[in-house]
Each structure stands twice: as C-alpha cells, then as structure tokens.
C-alpha cells in the first residue's frame, strides 16, 4: 500500500494546484487534443449531433485532463515552451538534465495506471491468506475506492480518473470479450445452448420488464425524489439487468466450479450483454427520437423491435465473416511465421469495430469470431505461435480487467452523485428477487426438456452468480444528455451501488458458500487417451442411435456439422489437411500431449543420471538404441523392489524402440536439424546460425518427432526441459 501511495505522490507531486495548471495549459489542451485523441467519433450516437459533440469533448477531456493535471507546471521546468508543444524550444544555457514530462505524459499515465493496478494484485497475493479471502475484482474495487479518496484529498480534479465510456468500450472491453470467446469451450456451449440462450434472451428481457415496471409504478406513487418517463426507466432497467461477463469470469475463474455451471453462468453473461446492449440502444434511440421529434410513431416501435434481431444476428454474422477471414489468412503465414499472431489479434478487433460502426452488437461479433476461428487458427500456427497467442490474449484480458475494476473503485469519487435511498434499495431488492424468479421459472421449464437437469444447488448458484459489473457502468455513463442531469446522476449512483454490492458481497461470499454447499469442483486432470477415445466413440454411437430412431437431435446436428467441417471448412481454412470424413484431432492431440509429457519426464530422469552422454553423442539409431536400452535397464533396476513385471517392461520398451527405429529408418532425420524448431531463438546469434545453415523452421509432424525431441543433441534436450518449465501451463483444462 505504501508503495502505491509513494508512486502516486511521485506522479502527482508536481502539481501546484490543479486549477492553476488547467488554466495555463488550455492552449496545450486543444493542440494535443488533435494530436492524441482520436476518440472524437463516438459510435454510440449516430443520430444526434448534440450528443456527438458532448461525447467527443468528453473523450478529449479525459485524456487531456489526465495529462494536464499531472503535467509539470511551467515554472518548474527550465523555460519549456507551453502552448506550442514541440515547436519552439528555448534554452538559456546548456541543461544537463531536464524533466521532459510533456513529451511522455500520455503513455506514461497509461503505463502508471496499468502498473499500479497490477501491483495491487501482486501485493495482495503475497499474503496467501488475504489473497484467497477476496476475489481479485473485489480487492481492486476496494483499492480503487481508497485511491479515489486519496486523490480527492490531494485535490485532484475527479474528471482525471473518471472512466470514459469510449475508452472503456473501444479499448478496455474488446480484449476481455475476445479472451472469453477464444477460450470458450465450444463443446459445452453447444450442449447447453438451449439453456444459455434462454437465460440470455428471455431472462434479460424478463428482468428488464419486471424492474422497469416496479420502478415506474413506484415513481408514479412519488416514492422517489425524481420523476422519469417510461423510456428512461426502461433504459436504466436494461443496463442494470445485464449480468456481467467480466465480473463473472473474475469471480468464477478463481473458484473452479464444474464446467456445467460455469458454461451456463458465463454463457448467459456473455450473450445477455448482446441483448442488454440491444435493448439499451433501442430505448436510447427512442428517447433521442422523442427529444428530437417529440413523439414516437408505431413504425419506430416496430423497427425498434426488429433492431433487436438485426443487431444480434448481424453481430454474429460479422463475427463469423471475420473468423473466416482470419482463418484463411493464417493458412498462408508459413513464411512470415512471426507475423501470424498479428492477424489473430487485429482481425477480431476489426470485427469488433466494424460491428460497432454498423450499429450491430460488437460484443457478440468478437465473441463469435474468437469461438469460430480457434480450431482453424491453432491448426495453422506453429506451436510457439499458438502458445504466444494464448498467453498474450490472457494477458491483455487480465490487464484490461484489472484496470476496469480499479476504475470502478475510483468511480465512486469521480462521479457526480444523486442519492435516493428508496430508488437504490428498491432496485437492489428488485434485481435480486426478479433474478431468482427468473432462474427458477426458466430452470423449471428447461428441466422438462433436458436430460442434464438443473438441481436446486445449480439454480442457487445461477441466482447467486448474477453479478453486475463494468458493462453496466459503461452503459450508464454514456446515457444521452437529453436526459435530465439529476436523473442521470441518480442512475449512475444506483448503478455503482449495485455493482459494489454484487461484486463485493456476492463475489466475496460465493466461495465459502460453494464449499459449504459442496458444489462439485472442476476436475483439473488431463483427459486420458482412453477417455477421449471413448467420448468420440460415444458421439458416433449416439448419433447412430439417433438415426436408427429417426430423430434429429443434438448428436445428429453436431455430427452433420463435423462432417461438413471435415469435408469443406477444414481443407479450406487449414493447411496440409487431407479431406476426410471424421475429425480425429482431439484424440491425436490428447495422445500426443500425454506421450510427450511422459517422454519428457523420462528424459528428465535420464538427464539427471547421465548428463554427459546427451551432449556428445550424435543422433544415430545405434546410439539411440543403446541409450534406450541403458535407460530401460536403469528403470528396471530401479523398480526391482516394486512389483513390476520386468519382462513386461522390457518387452514394452523393446517394442517401442523397434517401432521408433523403423520409423526413423523410413524418415531419416537430417543430423544437423534442430529437433525442436523454435520460431524464435534466445538471441540473435542463434538465429543467425540457423539462417546460415539455410533451414526453415518446420512443425514436427513426422512420427519420429517424439524420439528426436527426446534424444536429439544436448541443447535440444535442454530446450525441451527448459521450455517445459517456462511455458505457461497449457495442458490444463481452462474454464474459459
């Protein structure tokens, strides 16, 4: 904590007083604004020019205020020109060291925010007890709150650390949703698509209508301090009923619930954002039309309802198209391997922006894009690149999330408030009750039609997992200015309270509650080969039984899609693919992972005992044979006191060896080739050496690959081991 305070004091210590610096840098503001901020075109309100201005200024304001309030006031600098930016530079004598804050202030600020927020998490996890007590999101909010008080005490203008909705929706949100889509377990989603869609669509609509009805009736009876129109209340209800995927990921990921629960809660959270956003924009447009024209015609209503379908399905379509594009491009990136991940990130982001531009659901677009492109892209990228993509995606998402929650904490201080006790309380009670009713009714209906039913415990978790978060906040700060300021402040205040209550209260208590109720935890172990084979076998069997019964059920549909996928899509979108009727990749990858794991652990054992042998012996079948024989003997000797049948073991080893030797003979490896082709060497010398040998890195796909990886030359062996340690755990079943 003290570290943080120090950091902040350092950065803000140059402020004489914020008002003063504002004055001085007014001209600086305008110039830098043009240069730095491109957030002028607010995509949210294409239909209202007043709106447009307000937003662009707001966007500009934030970033410049950010810089201004922390900029070094000119008196402290040695005659640095302010007003002309980088134009004239004057110096009276030779300055050895000068503080050039103006030059770096924007990136510096961004960097410091990110650093501070991440440091908070690190510091909290240093103490194991504290680290597990609260979910990270709660910690960040609390810290943000504390920070807000601190900054206010310093006298910093609150608009500096106000979360701007454009920054949020254009920069902070996309990585999170992309991460969610990319790591979505498609299989589970497909199996639960009925429940997920029901919760997302019907559930959200129900919540919106119920809450708005309640609030409106109360407002008619003048329970509240302000009066609102129907649409204003509908707008608020739409944004407050959205379960937030960011918050859900943040909380649920740490508590490892089983996949069934997770996919339902998370799937709902992800897709209902599309719904809530659609409703929100629909009502917003109604309001703006009202303000512009004075009233709504029936055609407005009809088109508004249509917009629902158009926005959601349009977003999905955009996602699919871009997924197609990126998969196709990644097929041809063999020769520019390093650049392949660039496409993986840019194209989905463009999908988001395109959907945003067209007024479609950007969240759905980028989520669907991530979901669809995964299988093709991972087949096309080299192993290193795929790992890099995974790591980077997670990293981006985590940093965004961290910053968002920090800002949410700060938002209490930075927003203008209008507190109305009744409104807040009724909203809180309302969302809880209506969610419970919604979940119960929907699960009741679903259970009539499903084999995997929602138990009472599942339903409880579903109710409890209805966390509101940043997206609601993002929407509430982008309320149209045509709504009265008091009302807007009321909504903002209530929204913040709701977010705090759900994230803090529900987020903190959910872990102990789940362990008390003994909810089934996720099984983190790797799926064995036999399990993956059996799953595949059962898939086919059940699809076959469905055919015998003449029913078209989930299995047939999935089977049809897989056949279509294998016949058309995969050959089109992945490289080196033979047309086939079935998809065997899961079994093979499970097998390879397990074999590789075992092989590496075997190698680790050997290296411990015989470090010299590996570096000096060349790779020939003879040496390999000798090596394996010795290894086998060592293992057998080691296990003599255990009840292992040594004969069986020896047989196994020799069979394995014979087969590997046969394969080696059939595909003789070139002796100098790197057994583990790394895309990127540790340093440029290594890179140069490889280029001098005239080799291109290749993906190890020949059957002898495994053995070569093991018993290549010494450095390769070390490579295997070090890489194994330094790689992020890529073999675990991730909930996202």
């Amino acid at each position, binding site marked *: 904590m003290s570290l943080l305070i120090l950091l902040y004091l350092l950065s803000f210590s140059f402020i004489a007083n914020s008002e003063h610096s504002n004055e001085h840098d007014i001209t600086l503001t305008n110039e830098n604004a043009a240069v730095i901020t491109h957030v002028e075109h607010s995509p949210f309100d294409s239909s209202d020019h007043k709106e447009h201005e307000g937003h662009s200024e707001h966007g500009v304001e934030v970033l410049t205020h950010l810089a201004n309030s922390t900029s070094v006031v000119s008196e402290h600098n040695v005659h640095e020109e302010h007003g002309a930016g980088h134009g004239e530079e004057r110096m009276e004598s030779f300055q050895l060291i000068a503080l050039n804050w103006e030059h770096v202030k924007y990136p510096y600020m961004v960097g410091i925010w990110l650093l501070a927020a991440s440091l908070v998490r690190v510091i909290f996890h240093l103490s194991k007890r504290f680290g597990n007590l609260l979910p990270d999101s709660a910690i960040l909010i609390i810290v943000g709150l504390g920070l807000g008080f601190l900054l206010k005490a310093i006298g910093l203008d609150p608009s500096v650390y106000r979360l701007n909705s454009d920054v949020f929706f254009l920069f902070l949100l996309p990585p999170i949703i992309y991460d969610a889509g990319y790591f979505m377990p498609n299989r589970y989603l497909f199996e639960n698509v009925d429940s997920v869609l029901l919760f997302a669509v019907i559930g959200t609509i129900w919540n919106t209508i119920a809450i708005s009805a309640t609030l409106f009736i109360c407002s008619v009876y003048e329970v509240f301090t302000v009066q609102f129109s129907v649409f204003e209340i509908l707008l608020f209800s739409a944004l407050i009923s959205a379960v937030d995927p960011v918050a859900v990921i943040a909380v649920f990921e740490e508590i490892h619930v089983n996949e069934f629960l997770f996919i339902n809660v998370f799937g709902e959270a992800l897709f209902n954002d599309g719904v809530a956003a659609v409703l929100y924009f629909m009502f917003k447009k109604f309001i703006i039309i009202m303000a512009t024209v004075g009233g709504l015609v029936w055609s407005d209503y009809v088109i508004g309802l249509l917009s629902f379908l158009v926005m959601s399905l349009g977003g999905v379509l955009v996602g699919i198209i871009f997924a197609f594009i990126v998969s196709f491009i990644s097929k041809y990136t063999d020769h520019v391997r390093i650049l392949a991940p660039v496409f993986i990130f840019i194209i989905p982001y463009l999908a988001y922006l395109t959907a945003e531009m067209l007024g479609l659901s950007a969240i759905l677009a980028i989520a669907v894009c991530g979901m669809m492109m995964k299988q093709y892209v991972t087949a096309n990228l080299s192993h290193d690149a795929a790992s890099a993509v995974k790591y980077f995606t997670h990293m981006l998402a985590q940093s965004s999330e961290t910053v968002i929650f920090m800002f949410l904490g700060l938002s209490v201080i930075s927003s203008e408030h209008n507190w109305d006790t009744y409104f807040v309380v009724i909203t809180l009670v309302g969302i809880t009750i209506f969610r419970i009713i919604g979940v119960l009714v929907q699960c009741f209906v679903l259970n009539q*039609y*499903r*084999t*995997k039913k929602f138990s009472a415990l599942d339903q409880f978790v579903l109710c409890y997992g209805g966390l509101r978060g940043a997206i609601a906040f993002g929407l509430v700060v982008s309320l149209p200015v045509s709504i009265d300021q008091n009302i807007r402040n009321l909504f903002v205040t209530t929204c913040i309270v709701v977010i705090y209550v759900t994230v803090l209260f529900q987020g903190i208590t959910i872990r102990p509650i789940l362990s008390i109720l003994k909810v089934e935890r996720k*099984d983190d172990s790797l799926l*064995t*080969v*036999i*399990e993956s*084979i*059996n*799953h*595949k*076998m*059962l898939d*086919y*069997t*059940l*699809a*076959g*039984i*469905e*055919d*015998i*019964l*003449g*029913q078209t*059920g989930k299995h*047939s549909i999935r*089977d049809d899609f897989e*056949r279509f996928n294998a016949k058309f899509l995969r050959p089109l979108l992945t490289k080196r693919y*033979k047309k*086939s*009727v*079935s998809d*065997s990749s899961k*079994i*093979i990858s499970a*097998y390879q992972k*397990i*074999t590789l794991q075992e092989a590496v652990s075997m190698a680790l054992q050997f290296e411990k005992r015989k470090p010299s042998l590996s570096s000096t012996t060349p790779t020939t079948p003879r040496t390999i044979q000798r090596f394996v024989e010795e290894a086998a003997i060592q293992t057998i000797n080691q296990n003599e006191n255990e009840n292992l*049948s040594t004969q*069986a073991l020896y047989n*196994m080893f020799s*069979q394995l060896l014979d*087969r590997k030797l*046969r*394969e080696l003979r059939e595909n003789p490896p070139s002796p100098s080739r790197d057994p583990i082709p790394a895309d990127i060497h540790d340093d440029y010398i290594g890179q140069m050496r490889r280029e001098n040998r005239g080799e291109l890195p290749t993906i190890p796909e020949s*059957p002898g690959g495994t053995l070569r990886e093991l018993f290549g030359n010494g450095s390769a062996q070390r490579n295997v081991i070090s890489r194994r340690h330094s790689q992020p755990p890529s073999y675990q079943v991730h909930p996202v």
Partner: protein
Amino acid sequence: MGASSSSLSDEALQRLSSESGLSKSSIKMLHDRFLMLATHKDIENGEPFMTEGDFRNIPELVKNPLGTRLIEAFFADAEVGVRKGVYFADFVKVLSRFRPINKNNPHPWNSREAKLRFAFTMYDLNRSGTITKDEFTDILERMIGGNVSKAKVESIAERTMREADKDSDGSITFVEFCKAMEKTDIEQKMSFRFLT
C-alpha cells in the same frame, strides 16, 4: 411374441412396457419406427423383423464411421443368435438402454452398467468379455484411420491398452473398462430425453 403384424395389442404393449421400463407412448413410437424400417417378415408367424440390410438402408447410418460396428453391436446386444433378425422385442430392449435413468425407479435394462455394457460391446464384438488390442485397433482405425498413419493408430491403441489394462493381461475386461470411464457422466451422455 404374440403380436399381430402391424399393430400392437394392448397386452403386448403392457408386457413390453413393464419389461423394458419404457412408457407406453415411447413403445408406440418405437413400434411405428420399427415398422418403417423392417422389410422382412417371419414366415412362421408373420412377424416383422429387421436384418442388417434394413439397418443399412438408414441413410445417415452408413455415413457414420462406426455405422457398421453399431449395427453389429445392436445385433450382439440383442442376442439375436439363431434367429435371423432383430424382432421388435429386441429393438425395444436395445433402445431402452438409452432411456434416462430414473433414480426413484431404477431398471436393470438402462442402468449405468447396462449402458456401459453396450459401449463395451461396441469394442468387444465377439462378446468374449474382454477387449483385445486388435479389437481396439479396429475401432480406432474406423474413427481416425483416414487421417493418421497405421503406425500412429497402433501406438495410440497400445498406449490406451497400457492405460486401461491394470492387471496387464493384454486385454481390457469389463471391470477395467468401467474403471476407466468412472469420471465420465455416462448416465447423462448415453441417454435420450425423448425415451421416457
């Protein structure tokens, strides 16, 4: 069997229902489907039955990589034996395996063990009670053989045998099979909700 050729008597319906645990409406549904598929009639009592050819007439089934194996398993599970085809009672028996388990009213024909037994039969066709490496390789070949070299298929098969074969006798018994599948939610996976 006592049933007339094209409609099910109430008595037969009742008998089949209590035998299999399926509801009467499900049995009627199955019966309609059976009549659509069965093209052969027993000479002695005019009862319809299905041959392998009838099964192969189902278009989607042939496209299924495990289609022929499923047909063979169907016959094996129904214990057709001397009779030449699958009669309605056999049809009901095998398909009742896929009824969701009712915890309040368990039935031996669709218990977890019965379901696993069917899955086991998919591998172990000759019903020897054990899955040998060749039988396993056979199924694996059908599922992934098109994409993968024979050597790889064999190594995967070997790997699997090693994983599951706890007593190292070279084959997988039913008990070992069940053990390997204990983490899988068979009850939910091998059930169709419309079979009540």
